């Protein structure tokens, strides 16, 4: 059964001139990224508990949540700056408090927990988290460090395996992808926390992977067609790898989709961001990374293909 493939994304031989849209692609990307950077500064990311500090208590009340009563109960415990919000079902309550000056955030959690269960008996606490201000600053620093180091590692790796034109255009593209993802986070209001850092790193990893495949083919074709103009050569390479690009994007998309739909509060933000990143990463391989390589490599890449690491590769 199903011995032969039933579907295919594109015909065996496509000759789409992707490079014709190179300026368009770059302009659209630049506009989106600049817009994202503006969004990043105003209104800015919604920082999650990990990076902002404070407390979050998630409770399921018996029967519909009585917000007025809960607020009074909290005020009675001298907790007045708490924000209460409903999420999902009418009996789900989310209570947030920013990190105060006092260091005993963990004691506040216990107070809130008691106040809520006393105000509406039968309430169960689903989750209660408290992160001190110093710890949140540290988590933020470590998260950013991990992001930065990963980018640097990717740059160095591509530089060693390919040539600097490839490495530089790949990293520029990654940075553009990254800014757009930040813009996406600002617009959707998903909380930026440690799990989101993981999501962004995955997007970067995936996007790099996608660019590697196209670049690999460019390098191969550089050896094969020594006289072909670079623009034509890049077009050819994209066309040749198109089925694979679309195929892989689809499978990763399909794998992440159920997570976005049923992954629950923690993971759905992560998964939606992933889905966004897959679309951005796939399109940027074709419309950003390739044109950048064209601009940077014109007139130079041919010579590099004869010597250096690429020549050693040819023997295999």
């Amino acid at each position, binding site marked *: 059964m199903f011995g032969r493939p039933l579907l295919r*994304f594109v015909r065996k031989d496509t000759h789409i001139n992707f490079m014709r849209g190179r300026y368009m692609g770059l302009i659209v990307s630049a506009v989106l990224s600049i817009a994202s950077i503006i969004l990043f500064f105003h209104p800015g990311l919604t920082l999650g508990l990990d990076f902002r500090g404070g407390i979050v208590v998630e409770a399921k009340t018996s029967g519909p949540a009585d917000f007025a009563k809960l607020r009074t109960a909290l005020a009675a415990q001298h907790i007045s700056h708490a924000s209460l919000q409903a999420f999902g079902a009418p009996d789900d309550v989310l209570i947030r408090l920013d990190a105060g000056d006092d260091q005993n955030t963990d004691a506040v959690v216990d107070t809130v927990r008691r106040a809520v269960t006393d105000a509406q008996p039968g309430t169960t606490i689903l989750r209660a988290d408290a992160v001190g201000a110093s710890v949140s600053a540290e988590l933020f620093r470590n998260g950013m460090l991990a992001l930065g180091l990963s980018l640097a590692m990717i740059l160095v790796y591509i530089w060693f395996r390919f040539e600097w034109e490839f490495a530089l255009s790949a990293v520029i593209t990654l940075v553009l992808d990254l800014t757009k993802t930040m813009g996406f986070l600002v617009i959707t209001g998903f909380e930026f926390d440690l799990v989101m850092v993981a999501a962004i*790193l995955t997007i970067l*990893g995936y996007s790099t992977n996608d660019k590697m495949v196209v670049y690999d083919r460019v390098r191969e074709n550089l050896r094969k067609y020594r006289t072909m103009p670079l623009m034509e050569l890049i077009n050819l390479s994209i066309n040749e790898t198109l089925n*694979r690009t679309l195929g892989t994007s689809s499978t990763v998309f399909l794998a992440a989709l159920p997570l976005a739909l049923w992954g629950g509060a923690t993971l759905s933000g992560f998964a939606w961001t992933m889905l966004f990143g897959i679309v951005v990463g796939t399109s940027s391989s074709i419309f950003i990374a390739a044109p950048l390589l064209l601009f940077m490599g014109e007139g130079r890449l041919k010579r590099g293909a004869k010597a250096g690491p690429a020549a050693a590769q040819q023997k295999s």
Partner: protein
Amino acid sequence: MRMYYSRLKLASVLGVCLLGLLLCLPNGMRKPFPSIPWRQIHLGLDLRGGSYLLMQVDLKSLTHDRLQTLAENTRDTLLKSQLGYQNTNVDADKNTVSFQPRDAAEADTDVATLDKLPRVVPNEFSVKKQDDGTVALVLSADAIKARAREAVTQSIEIVRRRIDGTGAVDPEITRQGDDRIVVELPGISDPERIKALLGTTAKMTFRLVDSNPLHATYPPPGVSLVPMANPAEGGPLPVFDHVDVDGTDLTNAGAVIDQQTGEWAVSFSFDSVGTRAFSSVTQTNVGKRFAIVLDNKVIEAPLIRTPITGGNGQITGGFDAQKATDLALMLRAGALPAPLSVVEQRSIGPSLGADSIRAGILSLGVGFLLVVVFMVLFYGRFGWYADIALLANLVLMVAILSLFEATLTLPGMAGMLLTLGMAVDANILINERIREEVARGRTPLAAMQTGFERATSTIVDSNATAFLAHVMLFVFGTGPVRGFALTITIGIATTLFTTLLLSRMLMARWYARTRPASLPV
């Protein structure tokens, strides 16, 4: 590259897969064969409910304690050497003990004498003459760090004993960095009691109460006003600083009901050192009050009616059952070298954990199914082979995670799902290459060989980048990020094995068996 595989090679690849399957088993069922030490994946707190506490050793108090002893040593040494001094001052912010020499000429002798004070660690402190004429002993940053590390090591032991006493199941206590301890409590989603238990240093001392009524308002040097643990029992008591008997001399403690009053009390017994000290103090001080001080609060200060020589005692401090039990527990476990404070706390209720597992497994299942169907629709027979490799990949991932006894968290499950998506990439690369070679008019065998060869370099390239990025993430990440990075890193390794060996082998066997005239691509 060869398209023929020996039976031995085939058997060993299949063997690895079977072994993986075997290692997966303990996760599904409870101990299939009890005699074998099975390893299995631990569920993270986010999946089974529980609490995570990040506790920090109070560096200030540690430094302060060390400075106090340093100040005492300084006074003793100077007295013994017949060097005069005045205004000894302990400055916890600058980590210094300073004093004014009797006259300026003596300062150099002071420095030389004090420099011979014993140091707990090398370069623990330096002795200097300061510009304002005082002599100062300055604790070094390294010494404080070393002290914090030591305190953490001691604390871990005591924290473990205290938590074990509460009957918590499978608590995990680990150090983090120089001055932090991570306490993980599966199944306990309200850690209030444990926090109270760990937030007390439980330093118990027995000290005499100054009976001079004047000293209750103006304590002389050597006497401090110590507040009552229960303010209802009155104001602070003037208690001598000198410690007659130390809580470390206790051998046992337990919660009991007092025979006379019917109240809860804590009974304790001393070791030989404690017994001797206790009986000598009570013998010479009949008629005076003896304060039991816990963490600088007086629990009670009973009158010494008769000398107590048996080495046993009882504290009644208006306890309820829980408080008496907890105090006894803390006394048994020993005092913490410094207070611990909770800097991060995360508690997940059991119902949320169960929901998360359900959501995770559902997503994993549906995602897997979608990818399987996709591959068959787009790649036919070779798609089936990719699916088999994918299944083996999942099995091997679970097997390796079990072997490491890794902790599976929600982000970890996301990582597994993502690996499945990415693992397919390798198969797609291979299949697309084979298609291209077929389109160029190569024979099936040549197409498969060249296709594999070309795809392999790309596969290695793209996976190596992802591998590097996630190793970084694992090394520098914290919490959820690490779990995620770990599963992906393992996933990349299993992906390379299953695609480059297993699916290639499946194709090769199929080719050798049927010798097809054309490839189903």
